[in-house]
């Protein structure tokens, strides 16, 4: 109960604080430069120069402290030793390059990058096309979209249950092994099955992200001008040809957006690996490796930060691409 009041109190203080800032600072501005009287025009002009910064102030403060400053601080730390007391140049990076775990993480991240966006987009596209004209299509879409609301940890539990293992011949309680056994195969410990266990982890993310891809691609498919499809049908195109040669090329831009969005999610993937294998059995990824350096045993902030910066560098091309696209749209 105490906690409840703390939360309510914070909301009230937070909301009140925000409102007080915006309302108060605006009022003061209007007092200092009243928009009437002899200097009205001049005052309005001056006030309009200041006001945007009042509106933007808290946001800039937060963005600065919580996102921009950390980038530079991480960069600085990545070039220092474990406790940040001594400059070591690029040796943290060099050390990682020679480290087996880091190489394994890089390899796995690349595998995730290849597999997850591709499969999610593919399944999303299939789901969007299949459910598009069905009477129960919207319900179907909702159900495929649903995993989006489930936490990575929750999804980890769900899928770990599916991969659950019992010795051959016993009653299998994991769905996958039950199917394998029913088909006459031997049940497997899927999560320790090197190297395939990586794919069993990826499936979890594909399961989550397909709904996202489907929603966006479905909207894009509906945006395709009817005439182009009708013309193709009149020319005798088969449904397959209509789909692959008429529809897909027209939504290539959206497919790229979906792909890159999922790519960013994949680069940062942490929770799934953290709770399902914790990076054992050859499944380590960068985000989890960084967590290890930060919190396992003696923290080494230098090496941890170096991994964070490498993640940042991997995201940068997409960041630039996004900015360029956004600026084009603004114009």
């Amino acid at each position, binding site marked *: 109960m105490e906690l409840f009041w703390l*939360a309510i109190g914070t909301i009230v203080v937070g909301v009140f604080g925000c409102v007080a800032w915006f309302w108060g600072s605006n009022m003061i501005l209007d007092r200092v430069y009243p928009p009437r009287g002899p200097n009205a025009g001049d005052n309005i002009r001056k006030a309009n120069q200041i006001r945007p910064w009042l509106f933007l102030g*808290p946001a800039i403060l937060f963005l600065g402290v*919580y996102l921009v400053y950390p980038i530079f601080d991480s960069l600085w730390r990545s070039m220092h030793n474990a406790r940040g007391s001594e400059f070591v140049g690029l040796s943290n990076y060099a050390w990682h390059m020679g480290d087996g775990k880091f190489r394994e993480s890089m390899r796995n991240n690349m595998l995730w990058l290849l597999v997850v966006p591709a499969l999610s987009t593919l399944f999303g596209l*299939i789901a969007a096309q299949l459910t598009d004209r069905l009477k129960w299509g919207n319900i179907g879409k909702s159900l495929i979209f649903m995993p989006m609301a489930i*936490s990575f940890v929750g999804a980890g539990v769900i899928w770990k249950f599916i991969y659950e293992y019992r010795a051959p011949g016993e009653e299998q309680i994991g769905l996958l092994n039950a199917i394998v056994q029913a088909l006459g195969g031997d049940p497997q410990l899927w999560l320790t099955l090197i190297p395939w266990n990586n794919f069993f982890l990826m499936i979890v993310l594909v399961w989550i992200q397909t709904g996202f891809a489907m929603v966006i691609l479905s909207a894009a498919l509906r945006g395709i001008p009817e005439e182009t499809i009708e013309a193709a049908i009149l020319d005798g195109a088969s449904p397959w040809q209509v789909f692959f040669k008429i529809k897909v090329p027209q939504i290539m831009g959206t497919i790229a957006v979906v792909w890159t969005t999922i790519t960013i999610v994949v680069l940062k993937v942490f929770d799934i690996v953290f709770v399902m294998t914790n990076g054992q059995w050859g499944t380590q990824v960068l985000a989890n490796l960084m967590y290890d350096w930060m919190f396992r045993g003696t923290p080494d902030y230098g090496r941890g930060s170096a991994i964070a910066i490498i993640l940042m560098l991997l*995201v940068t091309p997409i960041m630039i691409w996004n900015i360029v696209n956004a600026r084009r749209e603004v114009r």
Partner: protein
Amino acid sequence: MEGMAGQKSSLVWAVNIAAFLLVLLWTIPTLGLLVSSFRDRDQILTSGWWQSFSAQEATGFVRTGTGDDAVQEDGQYVIEGTVLEEGQSLIGWGIRAREPAAFQPGETTEIEDGWQLTVAEDGSYRLTSDTPFEMRRGERIFVTTGAPARLTTENYNRVLTAEGLGRAFMNTMTVTIPATVIPILIAAFAAYALAWMEFPGRALLTAAVVGLLVVPLQVALIPLLRLHNELGIGKGYLGIWLAHTGFGLPLAIYLLRNYMVGLPREVIESARVDGATEFQIFRKIILPLSFPALASFAIFQFLWVWNDLLVATVFLGNTREQLVMTGVLRELMGSKGGEWEILATSAFISIAVPLIVFFAMQKYLVRGLLAGSVKGG
């Protein structure tokens, strides 16, 4: 495909079936968890959740009473009893371990030298002999029993009270609600400035927000943890609220700005001409009109904060009292990997709230996704 009637209907069928299979494939994992959370430990460990709606068949054996339990009836010695437990039904029985269902209920067999054994359908057995029984241990009756499908809410009681998930639920709420409300306010003002005010550096700031959208959280963890320690915030709710506010702002500003830019210019211009201050325009015109975008972001942020594990692990403590639900789940997976009934139930409780929010406000979620991704597409 319109012209060929026969081909068309088979295509429609194929599409329906394929779509159905896809939906099934995507739903089954969650369904398995839901069903499992209503089964007790023994059920989960002995059979797959997909069998929980059919009767459970099990084999075992029961010992009859010994000579001491025998009573005399019409010159015969009789031992009576039952082979079934509460709720079970008898499928078959036998007297050898290899054939636990050799006889139908109601049949009679001779065990040895004149001993007659009958097991009735209701599970009661009757062992008779013309001579007194001389055995120290009872005879074994092997039975194949069926238990009806049984679902229980016992797990939920246990998890919410004994396992501390109730506390974690409150913690998660405490983290989530302020962390959802506060960024909305801050972002709404900033988005309005970026969308409708003229000032130098506007394009640059907008681009910066787009860029910050993709900054990996990992970059911020170590610096912010140290910053919080130096500022004396340490680990706790204040720290995590601030962190989530900061991390959520780029998306909030981006979504809201995109939406506000699309609002009709005339409304805002005419309000300005009428002498309304920017603050009044924002409060009376922009904010109400932007409700759909505000709702979209609120759902994103709510889902993201509720489902987050990383930020909570780093910025909140890891003691039993401080854990959020994802943290508890993670701990359960490590320490009680085999206790599926606890794990499944806890997991389902933790995903229930997001699922409710999801199904109730899906419209806004979809709208927000589309605003963020397919502009002009």
